[in-house]
């Protein structure tokens, strides 16, 4: 099963490598990982997506909790949550293909953020499936470059991750 785990981490040198090191040392898989400071300068928020059986994910959360730098942890997938990822795609497009790209971008509620005579950059936000669908809809060979932020997320409603 796919799990999205959200962590509050001490904003200290080396904290991220403890998390990453845990995954490689114990052979857990990481599909994506994002980390950035929060409104509280002493804390970073890290979101990681992993896959594994319930037993493995239970171990992952226990091992993460055991890290001294991990302040709080939540498995977002255990309840209703919002999942978002941002993507930039550079697309080669000339002639008729240019209209096609801008139309697709509109359908997917993307923004064209850069335009040259031969290319566009489209910015797109959504969950992973939507971003995949956009890439699938583009003409093969037209994609020059893709950058994805990895998943960020938050629990819906009252539930929150804070200190």
């Amino acid at each position: 099963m796919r799990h999205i785990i959200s962590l509050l981490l001490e904003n200290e040198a080396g904290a991220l490598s403890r998390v990453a090191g845990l995954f490689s040392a114990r052979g857990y898989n990481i599909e994506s990982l994002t980390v950035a400071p929060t409104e509280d300068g002493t804390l970073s928020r890290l979101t990681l997506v992993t896959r594994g059986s319930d037993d493995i994910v239970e171990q992952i959360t226990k091992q993460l909790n055991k890290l001294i730098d991990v302040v709080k942890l939540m498995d977002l997938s255990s309840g209703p949550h919002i999942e978002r990822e941002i993507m930039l795609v550079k697309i080669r497009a000339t002639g008729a293909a240019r209209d096609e790209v801008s139309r697709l971008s509109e359908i997917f509620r993307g923004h064209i953020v850069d335009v040259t005579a031969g290319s566009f950059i489209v910015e797109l936000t959504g969950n992973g499936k939507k971003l995949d669908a956009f890439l699938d809809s583009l003409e093969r060979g037209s994609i020059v470059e893709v950058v994805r932020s990895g998943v960020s997320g938050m629990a819906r409603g009252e539930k929150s991750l804070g200190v």
Partner: protein
Amino acid sequence: MELTGAETFVRCLIEEGVEYVFGYPGGAVLNLYDALYQQEQIKHILARHEQGAVHAADGYARATGRPGVALVTSGPGATNAVTGIATAHMDSVPLVVFTGQVPTPLIGNDAFQEVDAVGITRPCVKHNFLVKDVANLADTIKKAFYVATTGRPGPVVVDIPKDVTAKRAEFHYPKKVHLRSYNPVTKGHPLQIKRAVELMSSAERPVIYTGGGVISGNAALQLTELTRLLGFPITNTLMGLGGYPGNDPLFLGMLGMHGTYEANLAMHNCDVLIAVGARFDDRVTGNVAKFCPKAQIIHVDVDPSSISKNVKVSVPIVGYCDQVLAEMIHLLRVQEKRTNGEALARWWAQINEWRSIDCLKFDRSASGVIKPQHVLEKLYQLTEGNAFVTSDVGQHQMWAAQFYKFDKPRRWINSGGLGTMGFGLPAAIGAQLAFPNETVVCVTGEGSIQMCIQELSTAKQYSTPIKIINLNNGYLGMVRQWQELFYGNRYSQSYLESLPDFVKLAEAYGHVGMQITKPQDVEGALREALAMKDRLVFMDFLTDKTENVYPMIPSGAGQNEMILV
């Protein structure tokens, strides 16, 4: 008052009540050594290799329950310390290891004797720190001791750049630490404890299985009381020996790969397993798919991540073992019917039948050749079970575990988790320094002892009268055993040629050396050596070269699939 980083370091150690620092100097720690030179409260023990220093600090910690402290220089000092740190990590031993580091402006420049000590040690410490500002030094040291000694204990590394040891800051040692991200659970959940007690009371074929957590959690008293209150059979892991009196009738001996027949079969057939401070290690479980197939499992441990890691359990209880066991005793005392007496009697009858095969038997009539088991049996008799026994890794370690009946906790000191050859001698030095008037024995093999042999020199300098029992079979015996049993007698690189003359070697270091070749001389030699209260005696016992350790559960097999003698 403003102090330099080096002075701060010394003051912090004094505040922590540190008695000994085990270490080895070098460029990056010259300021720290200079500050140590100018005081008298803390004694520094100069090892002959950083691995030895850390093992000695570890031996001290295991023997006393207090944190061990080591100090090494940057670069090679830190890398040499890694084996010691990893050894302590695997066995949850509280250590604070200080590593010197190149000056902060040089970090990352491939400076002379620079290694990323925090990076290298990250996977084998409980936590580590790099102190970049002298203003944070005292606070960090306080945290290091706190983290090392609370919850599930473990080693903590503090990496201190040289310039930080020279700079000055106002000294203030915090009384308390607060780490918002670290709050070990100490008290078990009352409802879970109640459920566990109900399960215990209704059990028909119970077994108590305990590990190193009972030793490090100082829960041996509570464990003994609980076990006797219930009259349940009990077995200890290699790390748990001494948690329950080894000569008590309820004790089934050690379990696991070289555990007793009765302990392993009791595990295999039990209906309720009470695991305390043990972690279901692969050397204990054998093939997990075949492990305790009929049992409901209660697991008490201070580390939540130990629970249901290898084996799913029915009643998990997170908390300090002593407190949880005390709570169980309390509940049982007020209970009318504590156990299922009839079923328990049938269970004991079955266990005693298994016991009667005497799985640790060995050829006592063998003449001409010393049986290693005989040496350890005699050692146990002569020391009346009161010695501190350290060991290295191999057959001798297993025989020591099987034949020395540990009656008290913290007397059996061995590298169970990492299995580090070379651990025994330096660990014995640490234990002997902690208990100068007790008998400290190092049981070793001619392979292992050579991995930290240089510490004989440390033992001389600090007059630690250790008794070294070298069970010299001329082979890397445990490797040879596997090659005999599973590799068609192809003894690849397990024969040690050109062994030194250990008697002369011991003498060269200023100690007493003895070689014992005949079974009838074993007892006399041991008596003679044990009587030399102020000398280190190196006893080189030439033992049966082909003796194997039995019983044995081959890897991948179940607990009921033992090879017997």
